[in-house]
């Protein structure tokens, strides 16, 4: 498979382009895009592509970029966009709508701190804001993963058992602007992996109305259906990994990436590129004879409670690293996963790299040394990294 040296932003856009072309025998591809640092290069790349039966509309705002994706997807086309930070905040009303219509739109987010005060560096607070809206959420840690995840996200979102929008996240700048080798499949391979999309609720000939008023008992059923559909995503993703491997000859990353976790006494739990640093730290501490392991949460929605319970079982200590702060609470990831640990396990939350701070192995080593000395779970800590 040919290898290209591209940034993660370009990898996401290239995957979307291939996915868009793969729908040329059906309703085509249409996307609304709008620039924002550090996601801009993704939309720029998309604007530079020739996509057969495809159109990229240069919108006037993120809100309308998602509006265009909604119109396109509701007409049966494959659709994709990209944004982050305040752009995502501005778009979010239409993200709610996209989920409500159950449209399989895929969006790439180069995670960035919300402002003002303005800050363009990586922080997961933007996409975590979308936690409860009915979007699938996947976090990547390298460029190949970003590329593979976007392709898989289309297949996952469009699966009739799932049928809902998907967010594919990468750390702003740390990944979005890093050039790395990415194996890029041929269009013919992508065509085989991603068959033409079929959106059953699309506006066609029948006179149905999408998104109209409903009563409480109808809303609760729609929420229930949406919830159940999202819970099937883990099983569907496993099938997608198999078919991905069959077509491309390599396996996309697992929903939870464990590293030397099985026999570990202490676990580091994190998302995105923090997980890569954590794996380095695990190696260093293993050399010193400490039984440390790492879990990188790639699939944040749906939450993989059963698997996390199994991984957490019998651990003495768990350090949950959050690149986000839920003000007045603690780390969002910590809040989600702490309940899956056994009562005897010490679960400590460290919010590191908030606002884009550069988290290096030495920072993690210091935190873990502190954790080794503790005998109970403490309050969540916001950690400054220089």
């Amino acid at each position, binding site marked *: 498979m040919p290898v290209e040296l591209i940034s993660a932003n370009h990898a996401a856009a290239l995957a979307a382009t291939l996915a868009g072309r793969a729908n040329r025998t059906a*309703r*085509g591809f*249409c996307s*609304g895009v709008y620039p924002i640092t550090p996601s801009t290069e993704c939309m720029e790349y998309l604007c530079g592509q020739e996509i057969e*039966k*495809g*159109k990229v*509309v*240069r*919108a*006037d*705002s993120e*809100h*309308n*970029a998602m*509006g*265009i*994706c*909604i*119109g*396109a*997807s*509701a*007409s*049966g*086309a494959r*659709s994709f966009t990209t944004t982050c930070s305040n752009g995502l905040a501005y778009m979010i*009303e*239409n993200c709610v*709508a996209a989920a409500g*219509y159950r449209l399989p739109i895929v969006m790439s987010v180069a995670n960035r701190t919300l402002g003002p005060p303005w800050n363009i560096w990586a922080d997961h607070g933007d996409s975590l804001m979308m936690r409860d809206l009915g979007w699938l959420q996947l976090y990547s840690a390298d460029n190949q993963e970003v590329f593979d995840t976007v392709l898989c996200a289309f297949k996952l979102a469009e699966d009739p058992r799932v049928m809902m929008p998907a967010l594919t996240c990468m750390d702003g700048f740390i990944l979005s602007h890093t050039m790395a080798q990415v194996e890029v499949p041929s269009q013919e391979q992508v065509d085989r992996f991603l068959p033409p999309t079929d959106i059953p609720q699309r*506006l*066609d*000939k*029948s*006179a*149905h*109305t*999408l*998104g*109209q*008023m*409903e*009563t409480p008992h*109808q809303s609760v059923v729609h929420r229930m259906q949406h919830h159940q559909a999202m819970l099937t995503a883990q099983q569907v993703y496993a099938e997608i990994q198999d078919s991905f491997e069959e077509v491309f000859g390599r396996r996309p990353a697992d929903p939870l990436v464990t590293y030397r976790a099985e026999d570990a006494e202490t676990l580091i739990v994190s998302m995105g590129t923090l997980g890569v640093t954590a794996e380095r730290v695990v190696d260093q501490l293993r050399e010193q004879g400490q039984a440390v392991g790492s879990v990188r949460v790639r699939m944040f929605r749906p939450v993989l409670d059963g698997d996390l319970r199994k991984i957490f079982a019998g651990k003495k200590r768990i350090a949950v690293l959050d690149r986000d702060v839920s003000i007045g609470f603690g780390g969002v990831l910590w809040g989600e996963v702490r309940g899956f640990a056994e009562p005897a396990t010490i679960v400590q939350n460290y919010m590191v790299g908030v606002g884009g701070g550069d988290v290096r192995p030495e920072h993690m080593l210091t935190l873990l040394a502190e954790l080794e000395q503790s005998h109970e779970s403490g309050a969540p800590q916001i950690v400054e990294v220089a």
Partner: protein
Amino acid sequence: MMNEPALNGMAYTERDRREPLLRPGNSNCGGCGMSNLMQMLRRAAADRELKMVVPACCAAVTSGGFPESAFSIPTIMSTFASAASVATGVAAVAQLNGEETRVICLAGDGGTYDIGMGTLSAAAERNEDILYICYDNEIYGNTGGQRSSATPVGAATTSTLRGKQEGKKDILGIMAAHRIPYAASISLAHIDDTLRKLQFALDAKGFRFLHVLSPCPTGWKSEPAMGIELVRLAVRSGLFPVFEVFDGERYLINVEPEFSAEALTMYLALQRRFRNTGVTEESLRPSIERYWNYLRLMSGRIVPARRN
């Protein structure tokens, strides 16, 4: 309520679309101008394939509750500010697939003049292949009648109890300034002109904008049966100019008003929203004249603004 005599005797003919666009059993108030508009649109559209985008507005309620719908065409209910962007996606995919589908936005004045203004402007600037119809009842009707930038001076609303101080935004001037292929105002009281414009706008390509003064008995505090008559008075008095603009350049006045003081007085008197707010025929006259002088200039019609 369909095909009532008040619509200038408009009757169902074999040229009409077989099924009404707005079906019986819809939840519109009696005397709603939008109901009249949908009836005329039915005739104008005939057999054309249509898709519709409706933002949050009265029309989002019109269709009734899931899963039934009072609209007989595929419709998507968009968020408040997004009608023209959702329609952009719908129209783009129709075009990619070589379909003749006409994509219509049916939006109120709040979603057009206020919250959806940026979206509307952007879609017009891109010259998307959309027919955007604003049924303007001059208030936020769905939420119980608050002021919008389409509310005229002197109209009492639930958020301007003593009458609005500011004038109405010049929506057609704004749309014409985008140099879109077609922008026009529609009088529900002038049915031939209305049908001609609807048909022209349905067939034209690119961004088309229609502005409809839509009587709202609930918000205007007027008699439901008087809606069409109120529109006629607004046209006769010069308060609601009926004209069209091609490519943002060629202005054409379609109905020459008589600038009747009596018509204007009656228009104000028949709506309780203008009662006790201080607005009178005399107080409105200067702004009507000023706007008509501008229209004369743009249309090149050298006719005095006022005839006595």
